[in-house]
């Protein structure tokens, strides 16, 4: 089974966000970056399917040059090779643009299965995977918690809301967006990191950018809706005062 896994590089969760002067994106020049966590689960699922059924795992990434960092990491975890659609504009692009770039990368690979994370930790539109399926003409299913593959067909467990689930059958090739927590992630071994250095990263050109009809007009910190009482002081003082307020004011203890 040949599997393409789409990954994205995003700023680390720990990084203190700041907005740029134009208020259209974050000031990420000095930010740390990491693999989008939902994509890590998609990669892990692809590696497990390969271990079970054989085949190849090809990592596909649409992003600027710095995204090589997460591509190398995916290769170190066990992906066989990678395709990098490289363009600075992809760092802040919307879902249509990213899906178009990934479609160019994936189409010539003739894969049986495409896996993506559920959504990105930065924009969080949750659209790229499903648009990509439509663009590639593949059937899709989203928010997947288990994948069974048998003779050219898939049976996947979709998460519904409120603790409900549903099995769905699909012919291959197909695209699945993977829910976080579907598996336990592996980390790169030293051997994997060494092996990754020799693995191929094919560069692909980004398609000409098209007007997609939406843009970030303004990016800002949300206004605080509720009046939060921040309890000041050292940890010991604040804790003592908090417990007092919970007992005497909120009567919650």
């Amino acid at each position, binding site marked *: 089974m040949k599997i393409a896994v789409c990954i994205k590089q995003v700023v680390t969760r720990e990084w203190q966000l700041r907005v740029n002067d134009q208020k259209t994106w974050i000031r990420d020049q000095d930010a740390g970056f990491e693999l989008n966590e939902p994509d890590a689960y998609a990669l892990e699922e692809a590696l497990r399917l390969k271990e079970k059924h054989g085949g190849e795992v090809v990592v596909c990434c649409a992003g600027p040059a710095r995204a090589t960092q997460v591509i190398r990491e995916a290769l170190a975890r066990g992906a066989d090779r990678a395709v990098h659609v490289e363009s600075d504009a992809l760092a802040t692009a919307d879902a249509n643009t990213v899906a178009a770039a990934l479609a160019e990368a994936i189409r010539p690979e003739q894969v049986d299965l495409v896996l993506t994370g559920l959504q990105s930790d930065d924009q969080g539109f949750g659209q790229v995977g499903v648009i990509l399926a439509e663009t590639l003409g593949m059937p899709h299913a989203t928010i997947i918690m288990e994948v069974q593959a048998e003779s050219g067909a898939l049976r996947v467990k979709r998460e519904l809301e409120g603790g409900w689930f549903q099995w769905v*059958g699909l012919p291959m090739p197909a695209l699945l967006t993977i829910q976080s927590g579907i598996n336990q992630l592996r980390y790169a071994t030293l051997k994997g990191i060494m092996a990754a250095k020799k693995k191929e990263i094919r560069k692909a050109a980004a398609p000409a950018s098209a007007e997609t009809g939406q843009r970030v007009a303004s990016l800002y910190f949300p206004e605080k809706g509720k009046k939060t009482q921040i309890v000041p002081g050292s940890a010991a003082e604040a804790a003592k005062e908090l417990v007092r307020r919970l007992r005497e004011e909120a009567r919650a203890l």
Partner: protein
Amino acid sequence: MILVVAEQRDGTLNRASLETIAAAQSTGDAIAIAVLGSGLDAVAQQLAKAAAGGVIAVDDPALKDYTADGFVMALEQLLAAETPDRVFLPHTYQTRDFAPALAARVKRPLVTDCIAIKDGAYVRPMFQGKLQADIAVQGPHIATFQIGAYRADAMKAGSAPTRTASIAIDASKIRQKPEAPFKEAKQAVDLSQAERIVAVGRGIKGQEHLALAQQLAAAMGAELAASRPICDAGWLPMDRQIGSSGQTVAPKLYVALGISGAIQHLVGMKGSRTIVAVNKDPEAPIFEIADFGIVGDLFDVVPAMIEALK
């Protein structure tokens, strides 16, 4: 005209649909409401109680069980027939499954997870809710609205005429074969009955530190719970998860330790009577809904709280 696509399953309306109708009504534009499925009379009658220009039942046996292919096929035809400028949907798991494919099919921009409409732009969270963006959109488009962003009881009542749409679904073109929805084995812990809850998030850093949170829970007479990443990592069982994919709770006291407050978590606990947040990051979204907050390292604050409770 705004077309609201309501959601139902087996004749039961998803209440988030009413919130989306309220969002559409708030614009002052003409609206129509569509609902897809099979055997829709009762649901259509229920929707007809909203102030709207009409309720359109897209009724076909092939739409009885939801499939992405079936819904995209039906809505592509409906949009061609009704030509709405805007299509609004609740941001449910079902919408997330098909709306991007529909948007790509009909070549309209899609703005997901909106919480408000401001001067024609859509307001939505970005960067895990730490930031908010106004998204400007050109031309006919599709938008989805976060659950709870608008109030169902704010929906204006009226009496809308109902009709059926003539849509042809070729069932042989539906590639997804759904089986019956089911629930996993009964949950061992019913957190909805807990008077107090101490919940941990990524800030707890490692499974070995859960004992600290457990000590605080014991000192408060609280149940221990967690945000999704903690259960994903296997540090606590899934039935201790609070949020959109876990349990919804409204205890007397909710203490969030090292939880940043992604919307998926907030929807599961924002009804709590008193919310306490302990977080290193003063900009963490959890502080937007907390009554009391301590900005600090939970590894300093929690032992001090345990001490103060003695």
